[in-house]
């Protein structure tokens, strides 16, 4: 573990000045001569056979350069990702629709014009023939619905199951079995900067350069390479400053592939700047999971077994990451607990909606909600304190590394310490007193806890390090920021390893022509993997100097600069934590008020507490949004009813409740920094804690469970004693 002066310090961000002065370069700020603007013709139907696409009137408009359909582009569907042990259908997203459309908003044709307004004028004049088909909306009943893809008659795009221990015996031996069904709605990631791409093809070198608003250059490089049939030496991806992603800019969108393919066909530079409506309709959405979960317990609260069936609403096609979230949910269903016998089945259903994919937490929030709600439901059934039931079942500190029955190995953790810290930070005892006093006055109040484990990091990441004779240090990292603050944290790490000032460190990222091949930024992996690669490269340089009997500075002077490259690989690491929520529900209106939240995260070693707390707060408020207001709603025709910020609200500063944050540091043994991940805990644990607090508040009204979001109308009806 590095023990220098910079890692662990709350250093303000060095990259802030360009953002604050309006000097950052986001995608739509990149200017190239002769850029044409793109607009897409999108399907108005959730499901239809697609006939002829008539574009003569559109092409005739002055200022319109081209209208392209699937037949005009040389592009295969985007690649489908594999999941260990899963059956995954070949249902990649076609770059433009060919014979059918399978969600409202699916791109059918691409228009290129001198301005975006002209491109939209032309898009309106494209006349496509549709023969509407029945929409498929519910993942629970999709198996019996008409097939979304002819070659997948049961609409199961993904199937996965795992069983460990004697589950039937565990349930037979149980004193109590509790069962609960869940519906976790789809959410929209809604980065304030929507997606977008610029593509330029150089016919001389046959190099296609694609700028795109993405989480890293590596996955666009691989996915566009696959779709367009381009080797890496003829494709370059540049990621500029990115205005938020939250998982939604990980897999490259079909629109990006369409624009890239069109740039080759037309030989002209093209730009697509996604607008908000498009982002709602066609950026992959998050969550979308139904579940039936059963827990078998002994009378003393020991969990004996768990059985679960998960029905994921995957949407019309599989993006590379679409199967990841339900698989992660399944693998993490045991949460922080020792559960000897487990059986989980996952069906990822095809529906006629935009595909789903990772959104902050990506399967982990669903797992935490399911298992944490089940523990509370069971505790109430058994007449036990839910906190005691948790203590009775925690994986104890001495059990690490702990291989779960589902097959992942938790590297380290201190679950009870996290819980204790949260109870203290949030003043649990006085929250309970307050709740009881409120109830005595006829008010509706509740307190709830949510534990979580977060799969983070894994795979590998790269770093190239160069020490210049003038004292500058240049770090080229495969990791890539979109708000996390890599330029600051990576400089802190390099400064400690090399004994230099962070100001001397330049961090280069985002351009596949500049940075080494890498994996990318997702799953809270940047510091643990990219930071560790940097540590390994620095240590290699130091060892080289030591072997030569020189100081680092002498080595650099002798060689006119010194370089090292490293790839760091590790198994998965597991962050964890405990959140505590106190809520009150207004009796007359059903409005939910979050009175307080206490957030305790164990992310291993923290490089920069200021930035780490920023991640906790941001993720927590996204989690609160899921509890209070966020829900993507499709109507019976499959149309998205929440397709703007007027219908899909994000929380504002006025709704922010008091949030206290604290870190427990159980270092990971799997990397030299001891780091885990900090990006998602708040989004994972907040819905679980709030859901438990809401259920606690409604328990006196005979309510056992409520699905998020906890809207006024829903809670009011429960307070009236109406079934939902």
């Amino acid at each position, binding site marked *: 573990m590095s023990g220098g002066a910079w890692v662990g310090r709350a250093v303000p961000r060095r990259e802030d000045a360009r953002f604050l002065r309006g000097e950052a370069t986001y995608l739509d700020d990149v200017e190239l001569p002769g850029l044409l603007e793109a607009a897409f013709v999108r399907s108005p139907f959730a499901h239809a056979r697609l006939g002829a696409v008539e574009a003569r009137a559109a092409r005739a408009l002055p200022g319109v350069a081209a209208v392209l359909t699937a037949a005009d582009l040389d592009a295969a569907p985007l690649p489908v990702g594999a999941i260990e042990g899963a059956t995954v259908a070949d249902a990649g997203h076609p770059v433009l629709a060919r014979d059918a459309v399978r969600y409202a908003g699916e791109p059918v044709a691409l228009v290129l014009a001198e*301005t*975006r*307004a002209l491109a*939209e*004028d032309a898009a*309106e004049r494209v006349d496509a023939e549709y023969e509407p088909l029945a929409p498929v909306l519910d993942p629970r009943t999709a198996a019996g619905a008409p097939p979304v893809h002819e070659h997948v008659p049961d609409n199961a795009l993904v199937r996965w199951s795992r069983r460990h221990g004697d589950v039937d015996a565990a349930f037979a031996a149980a004193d109590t079995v509790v069962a609960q069904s869940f519906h976790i709605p789809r959410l929209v990631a809604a980065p304030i900067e929507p997606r977008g791409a610029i593509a330029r093809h150089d016919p001389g070198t046959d190099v296609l350069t694609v700028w795109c608003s993405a989480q890293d250059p590596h996955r666009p490089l691989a996915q566009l390479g696959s779709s367009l049939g381009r080797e890496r030496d003829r494709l370059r991806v540049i990621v500029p400053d990115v205005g938020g992603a939250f998982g939604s800019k990980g897999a490259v969108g079909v629109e990006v592939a369409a624009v890239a393919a069109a740039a080759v066909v037309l030989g002209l530079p093209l730009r697509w700047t996604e*607008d*908000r*409506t498009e982002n709602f309709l066609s950026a992959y959405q998050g969550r979308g999971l139904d579940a039936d979960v059963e827990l078998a317990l002994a009378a003393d609260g020991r969990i004996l077994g768990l059985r679960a069936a998960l029905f994921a609403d995957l949407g019309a096609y599989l993006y590379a990451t679409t199967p990841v979230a339900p698989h992660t949910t399944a693998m993490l269903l045991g949460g922080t607990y020792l559960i000897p016998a487990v059986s989980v089945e996952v069906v990822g259903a095809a529906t006629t909606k935009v595909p789903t994919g990772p959104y902050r937490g990506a399967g982990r929030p669903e797992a935490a909600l399911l298992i944490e709600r089940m523990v509370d439901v069971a505790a109430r059934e058994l007449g036990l304190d839910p906190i005691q039931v948790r203590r009775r079942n925690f994986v104890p500190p001495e059990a690490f590394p702990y291989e779960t029955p589902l097959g992942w190995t938790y590297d380290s953790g201190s679950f009870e310490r996290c819980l204790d810290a949260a109870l203290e930070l949030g003043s649990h005892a006085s929250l309970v007193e307050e709740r009881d006093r409120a109830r005595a006055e006829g008010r509706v109040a509740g307190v709830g806890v949510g534990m979580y484990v977060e799969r983070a990091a894994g795979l590998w990441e790269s770093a190239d390090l160069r020490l210049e004779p003038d004292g500058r240090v240049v770090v080229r990292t495969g990791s890539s920021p979109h708000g996390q603050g890599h330029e600051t944290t990576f400089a802190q790490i390099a400064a400690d390893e090399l004994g230099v000032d962070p100001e001397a460190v330049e961090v280069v990222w985002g351009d596949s022509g500049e940075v080494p091949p890498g994996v990318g930024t997702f799953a809270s992996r940047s510091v643990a993997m990219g930071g560790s690669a940097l540590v390994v490269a620095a240590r290699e340089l130091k060892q080289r100097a030591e072997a030569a009997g020189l100081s680092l500075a002498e080595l650099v002077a002798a060689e006119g600069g010194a370089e090292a490259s490293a790839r760091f690989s590790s198994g998965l690491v597991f962050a964890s934590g405990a959140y505590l929520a106190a809520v009150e529900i207004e009796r*007359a*209106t*059903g*409005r939910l008020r979050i009175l307080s939240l206490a957030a305790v995260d164990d992310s291993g070693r923290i490089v920069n507490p200021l930035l780490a707390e920023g991640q906790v707060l941001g993720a927590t408020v996204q989690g609160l949004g899921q509890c*209070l*207001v966020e829900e993507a709603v499709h109507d019976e025709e499959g149309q998205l009813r929440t397709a703007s910020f*007027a219908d899909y*609200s*994000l*929380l*504002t*500063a*006025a*709704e922010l409740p008091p949030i206290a944050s604290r870190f427990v540091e159980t270092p990971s043994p799997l990397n030299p920094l001891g780091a885990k991940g900090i990006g998602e805990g708040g989004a994972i644990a907040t819905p679980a804690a709030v859901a438990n607090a809401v259920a606690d508040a409604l328990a006196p009204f005979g309510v056992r469970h409520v699905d998020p979001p906890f809207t*006024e*109308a829903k809670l*009011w*009806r429960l307070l*009236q004693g109406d079934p939902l």
Partner: protein
Amino acid sequence: MKPAAFAYDDPTELGEALTLLRGDGEDVKVLAGGQSLVPLLNFRLARPDRLVDVNRVEELAYLRRDGDVLRIGALARHADLERSQEVAAGWPLLAQAVRFVGHAQIRSRGTVCGSVAHADPAAELPVALAALDARFHVRSARGSRTLTAGELFLGFLTTALEPDELLVEIEVPLPPASSRSAFVEHARTHGDFALGGAAAVVGPGEARLALLAAGPAPVRAREAEALVVAGAAAAEAAEAAVAGLELTGPGADWRRALLRELARRALEEAGA
């Protein structure tokens, strides 16, 4: 998401604006603050042939007390209402209501008359003006007329204004002497569209109650007003205020309960 093309005029004289509004067969729309119209243009839900931008008609830019009435010109912005000492002193309900209109960036540009002409039943000022018995002065090249709230607001986003008419001024009489007022509303997030709301004015022998998002247009709860004057408790009057509302669709029961609670709070805050 860019507007479809339109022709554009920005006259500086009212007469010129009214002439342009005649349209001669074109679909012409008035552009004032634009805070409701421009989103509709951006979504291409509104596709006028021509916009008549009245922002340069200086004679419409006023907000002033004139004896016992407040005169709100067509170019008075929400922010003007919000900052006016005269409004705060004489028409506190308007000052209370305007704070709920969107956000500062909306209020700095949006106009009071524009909000009224847009006639969104979830908008604050039409409800507050209905509670204050405001009168609405309308002009066209054909002449002028004056409407009450009941005559003006016909339904969801629908008023009695003809396409060539401009709402040039709102005239608001002083509320009853020694009355108190209150405005309450409920939205999912701050500044989001209201899911319900209530405006109340209560004074000796006088009560006004108007409801927001309680139907296709602002609702004056006359029966509840009579009950308050007769000495009924706020809760009882609130019950009467929502009893006759025609609320339909999912969540109608909850909306009724919400409006009942908001009506009660508004009446109590106003001293009923």
